[in-house]
């Protein structure tokens, strides 16, 4: 068990955002956090690596309480890809090299550079290595921030809507890259997802949030038409097409 979350509560002022959230994730597992806008998905993700501090509950990362770990100690094990990221005048290589930041003492070493080169190759960004971020398309930029997180060599990868800016082809490519890396390196992936079908295709586990609480969580078996209809408030049909489960809004 790489991550174990128990009884998390979070509120902005008196407004509850998360109530009594608990779940566990194993190494190599891909967990999708699903639910309507405002259900608390992004907030939950941010509490996991101490960007936000929950008011109650515990988060154990490899057996250690996250709230007691330093940011650096967390960064050595957990990488986070924010929903909004900045494009600035920085090359792709530099942006990905920044993923080595938790390991760099004074200056990047040859092995840091070699690792960055490997990640660029894996994410198909080689030809963009010396391009500036502010000259990239949304899809390329999304790949860069994911490449940076992979360069961090995390044990847990937190992704906030990793495919929201991407076209169909890039959605598939990016999720495939994440899935492959996760299986290869035994990384646990926790992703906030909007697209139910993409979530179904790439994740092992699902957690449906509704109004600050876990509505249901588990394997593909929990992704029933009834559960989805109730938690999203939209009636859907869940079908099996060519050995692939798909959700169709009715």
């Amino acid at each position, binding site marked *: 068990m790489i991550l174990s979350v128990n009884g998390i509560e979070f509120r902005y002022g008196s407004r509850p955002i998360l109530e009594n959230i608990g779940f566990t994730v194993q190494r190599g597992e891909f967990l999708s956090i699903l639910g309507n806008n405002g259900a608390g998905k992004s907030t939950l993700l941010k509490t996991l690596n101490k*960007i936000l501090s929950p008011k109650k509950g515990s988060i154990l990362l490899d057996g250690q309480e996250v709230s007691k770990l330093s940011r650096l100690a967390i960064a050595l094990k957990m990488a986070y890809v924010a929903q909004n990221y900045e494009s600035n005048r920085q090359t792709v290589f530099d942006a990905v090299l920044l993923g080595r930041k938790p390991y760099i003492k004074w200056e990047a070493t040859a092995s840091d550079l070699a690792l960055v080169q490997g990640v660029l190759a894996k994410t198909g960004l080689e030809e963009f290595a010396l391009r500036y971020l502010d000259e990239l398309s949304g899809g390329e930029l999304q790949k860069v921030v994911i490449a940076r997180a992979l360069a961090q060599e995390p044990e847990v990868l937190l992704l906030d809507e990793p495919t929201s800016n991407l076209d169909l082809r890039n959605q598939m490519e990016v999720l495939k890259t994440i899935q492959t890396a996760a299986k290869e390196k035994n990384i646990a992936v926790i992703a906030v997802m909007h697209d139910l079908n993409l979530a179904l295709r790439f994740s092992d586990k699902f957690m449906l949030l509704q109004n600050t609480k876990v509505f249901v969580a588990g394997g593909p078996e929990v992704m029933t038409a009834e559960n989805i209809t109730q938690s999203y408030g939209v009636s859907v049909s869940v079908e099996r097409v060519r050995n692939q489960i798909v959700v169709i809004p009715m």
Partner: protein
Amino acid sequence: MVRDETLPDGEITHYLRYTWKKKIIMLGLMMMTAMLALYAISAGSAELSPWQVLLTLLGQTEGQSKIIIWSIRLPRVLAAMVAGIGLAVAGAVMQTILRNPLASPSTLGIAQGAAFGAALAIIGLGAGSTPSTGGGALLINSPYLVTISAFVAAMLTTMIILFLAQYKGVSPESMVLAGVALGSLFSAATMLLQYFTNDVNVAAVVFWTFGDIGRASWGELGIMFCVVFGSLLFFLFNRWNYNALDSGAETAKGLGVNVESTRQWGMFFASLITATVVSFLGIMAFIGLVAPHLVKRLIGGDNRFLIPASGVMGALLLLAADTLARRIIAPVVLPVGAVTSFLGAPLFLYLLVRGSKLR
């Protein structure tokens, strides 16, 4: 950066070539600064050849040229370089940690705070001036009181901004606005002080704010040097943190950066540099704003190169401005603060329009 020839050809080689270009540009700037420094030491009412200057610096000559160089020109040139490095580096760090291209010592109210402190000392605390009979320049009775008062007021401005950020949760964007507000508050306070005093004191305050590199003696130079290079070392130690911050606060946190304390300490040291330089030498506008931007245009925003290169650019600009101020209508010395803007602004506008960048 590590250069390892055994690495496979490809992105790493290209990348290392790209970073070498930046280093070569930085080296070029350093050489330009060194040459200008040599010229600045040799040029003046007593003309010395650059060769004589070199010999004197190496201790090979005696007499008048030795006195002129060691007690007048060398401290002035070094002061211009140290102050230029300090202001530019402070500006570069402020722009990064506040994520605002307009952040600089003069836009955050620190310079105005220093000016108020100086005015308070000159007018309120009786460090006032007596008109000198000979040269027409104004003398300040107790320069140390003025310096200390300016320093305290400048640091007070910083402390207010940091307090707002720390305890009231003011965002970086609002920190810049708070700086602007404090700047205009201190300007107004200075104005009121000037309104209720005599013309001699007003002249002394105005004269102080002009900025004059020649005020620095060896002792003051030593203090400035320690503050500037101590802070520079701190900034260089944090350069990866600043790069992470440049990618957004949440991303930086995910990369293990203590965002709040990085901001607070960065602001503290940047302000310490500014307060020290301004209280010794007066206000030199624009260096802290323009030098980092010029460097960004040349070599990009990577703080590993931006911070040291901004320092070199600041030294070059302030030295150039001071040399021009001394030479253009010699023997009259123009206020260097005005020259920095005259020199920097057109150059800046030209580069903005041309949009030069390193690939």
